C-alpha cells in the first residue's frame, strides 16, 4: 500500500515547492512527482469548477528543427504534420512498422521549420531514439529538451482569467507568433513573456476542461509556479497532483499510454483511427503505413468502450469484462468518477458486445459487478 521512494528518481524543478505545499510525492516514470497535495477529489473538483495548477515537468519535449522538419514528421508520425499551421498543435502518434503505438504525442508547430513534440515521460527517451533512427535522408536536427524544460498547466474554467491576472506574464506582439492571448484557440499556442523572458503558452491539456500549458526553462519554473498560484487563489486555483490528473482524463475519455495504448495496440483499436492520415502527399510510405492500411480495412478484433458500473465497486486496470460466463474483454482504466458519482472505466471488448447500452459485468476481485456500455467521454464540459 505504501509506495517506496527512491533517490534515483529525477526531481522536478518544482520539487521543493511541492514538498512545501505538503504534497504526497510518488515515483512516476522515473520522476518523483506530486500525487496529491491534500484531497484528490477536492483537486479534481477544483479543476471542474475553478482551476487546478499542475506540474508536468516530467513530460518529454523534443525539438525538431531544419528545412525538412515538416517532411520528416510526416514520415515519422502517423498524422499530416506538414499541414499543421504555425502556432497550432495536433494530437498524433508515433507507431512502429507493425502499426503498434510507440507513444501518443502532441506536436506544436512553432515556425515553418520548427516543431516541439511533447511525449509521455515514460516514453520520452524511446520516442527520441525512434525519431533519430527515422531521420535518415532528412535535413533535420533533433534535440531532447526534456530535462532543461519545465511544464506547468493551468486547467479549468477560470484558467484564462488566472493567466490574465498573473503578475509578470505579459503579451508581446513582437514574439507572440501572430495571436493575441484573448484570441488563442483550442490546440493553438503563442509566445508570451514572463518576467521579461519568452515562454510558450498552449491552449491544450489533459483534463477535459479549458486550460493552458506553459513551457519555460527549468530554472525559471519556481517563479512562474508561485506567480500562477498567487494570481489564481482568488479564482479558486489549487495545486493538483497526478491522482486528479488521472481521474480527470478518465472522465474525459482520454487514453493513457500503458493503459489504453501500447505497442500491441494500433490507433484503430483505440478508436483513434482519425489521427492516422494514410495518404500524405509528400510521404507515401510513412513508418507503419503498410500495417495501418491493412488494419484500417480489417474488421476490428476489439473495440475500446466506456462502461459505467451499476454497483459501488469500481472496475480497475486489468480486470476481466464478462458477458454471462464468457470473458469478452479487459478493463484498461477505471475509478469511481468524482464528477458522476459512479464507477467508470474504459475497456477493450469484442465488437459483438460493444454497442451502447449492452449489459455486461466486470470481475471485481472475484465478484461479477454489473456494468453497461456507454459512449465516451463520460464527461463533457459545458460550453
Amino acid at each position, binding site marked *: *500500500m505504501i509506495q517506496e521512494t527512491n533517490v534515483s528518481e529525477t526531481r522536478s524543478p518544482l520539487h521543493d515547492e511541492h514538498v512545501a505545499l505538503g504534497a504526497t510525492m510518488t515515483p512516476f516514470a522515473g520522476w518523483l512527482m506530486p500525487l496529491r497535495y491534500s484531497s484528490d477529489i477536492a483537486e479534481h473538483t477544483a479543476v471542474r469548477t475553478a482551476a487546478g495548477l499542475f506540474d508536468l515537468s516530467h513530460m518529454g519535449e523534443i525539438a525538431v528543427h531544419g528545412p525538412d522538419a515538416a517532411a520528416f514528421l510526416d514520415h515519422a508520425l502517423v498524422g499530416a504534420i506538414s499541414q499543421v499551421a504555425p502556432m497550432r498543435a495536433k494530437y498524433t502518434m508515433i507507431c512502429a512498422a507493425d502499426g503498434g503505438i510507440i507513444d501518443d504525442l502532441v506536436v506544436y508547430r512553432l515556425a515553418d521549420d520548427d516543431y516541439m513534440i511533447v511525449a509521455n515521460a515514460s516514453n520520452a527517451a524511446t520516442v527520441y531514439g525512434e525519431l533519430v533512427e527515422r531521420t535518415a535522408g532528412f535535413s533535420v536536427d533533433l534535440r531532447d529538451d526534456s530535462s532543461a524544460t519545465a511544464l506547468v498547466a493551468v486547467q479549468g474554467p477560470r484558467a484564462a482569467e488566472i493567466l490574465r491576472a498573473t503578475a509578470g506574464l505579459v503579451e508581446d506582439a513582437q514574439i507572440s507568433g501572430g495571436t493575441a492571448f484573448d484570441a488563442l484557440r483550442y490546440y493553438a499556442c503563442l509566445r508570451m513573456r514572463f518576467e521579461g523572458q519568452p515562454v510558450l503558452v498552449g491552449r491544450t491539456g489533459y483534463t477535459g476542461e479549458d486550460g493552458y500549458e506553459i513551457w519555460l526553462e527549468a530554472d525559471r519554473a519556481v517563479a512562474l509556479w508561485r506567480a500562477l498560484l498567487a494570481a489564481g487563489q482568488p479564482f479558486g486555483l489549487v495545486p493538483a497532483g497526478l491522482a486528479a490528473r488521472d481521474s480527470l482524463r478518465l472522465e474525459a475519455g482520454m487514453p493513457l499510454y500503458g493503459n489504453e495504448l501500447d505497442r500491441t495496440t494500433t490507433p484503430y483499436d483505440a478508436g483513434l483511427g482519425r489521427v492516422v492520415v494514410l495518404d500524405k502527399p509528400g510521404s507515401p510510405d510513412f513508418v507503419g503505413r503498410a500495417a495501418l492500411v491493412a488494419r484500417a480495412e480489417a474488421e476490428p478484433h476489439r473495440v475500446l468502450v466506456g462502461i459505467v458500473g451499476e454497483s459501488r465497486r*469500481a472496475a480497475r486496470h486489468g480486470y476481466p469484462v464478462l458477458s454471462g460466463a464468457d470473458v469478452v474483454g479487459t478493463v484498461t482504466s477505471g475509478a469511481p468518477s468524482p464528477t458522476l458519482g459512479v464507477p467508470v472505466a474504459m475497456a477493450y471488448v469484442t465488437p459483438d458486445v460493444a454497442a451502447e447500452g449492452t449489459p455486461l459485468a466486470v470481475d471485481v476481485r472475484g465478484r461479477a459487478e454489473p456494468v453497461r456500455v456507454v459512449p465516451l467521454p463520460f464527461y463533457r464540459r459545458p460550453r
Partner: protein
Amino acid sequence: MSGQPPADLQYTVEHEWYAAGAPATVGITDVAADALGDIVYLELPAVGDEIAAGAVVGEIESTKSVSELFSPVSGTVVAVNQAAIDDPAVVNGDPYGAGWLLKVDVTGTGQLLSAEEYAALAAR
C-alpha cells in the same frame, strides 16, 4: 502527512489498528488513509459475521486505488460504522476516532504490533 500512531492502540503490518475492549474496535491507520487518498467506498462485514484474524473482511476503495481490510482479530462483528459507510471521508479525516470501522467481540488476536513497532514499520 501522518502523525505518530496513538500509543494506546495496537497495529497490524497491513495498517489496521486495534483497540482492546469489550467490544474491541478496529480501523485503519492514518498511514493507510493517506496512502489510499480520498476514500469513496467501504465494504464491511455484516453484524453477526464471524471473522478470523488475518483474513480479508472488507474493502476500502479510493479514487486511485483499492485496498483490502485485514482483520487484526478473530471474533464476532457486533457493530459496523454506518456513518463511515455513508460518508467514507470520515475515515480520511479521523481514522482513529469517528472513522472507526468495526466493533468485535474478540475470541483471539493475530500478530499485533505496538505503536512503537508500527511507527518504525511505517517509517521504512
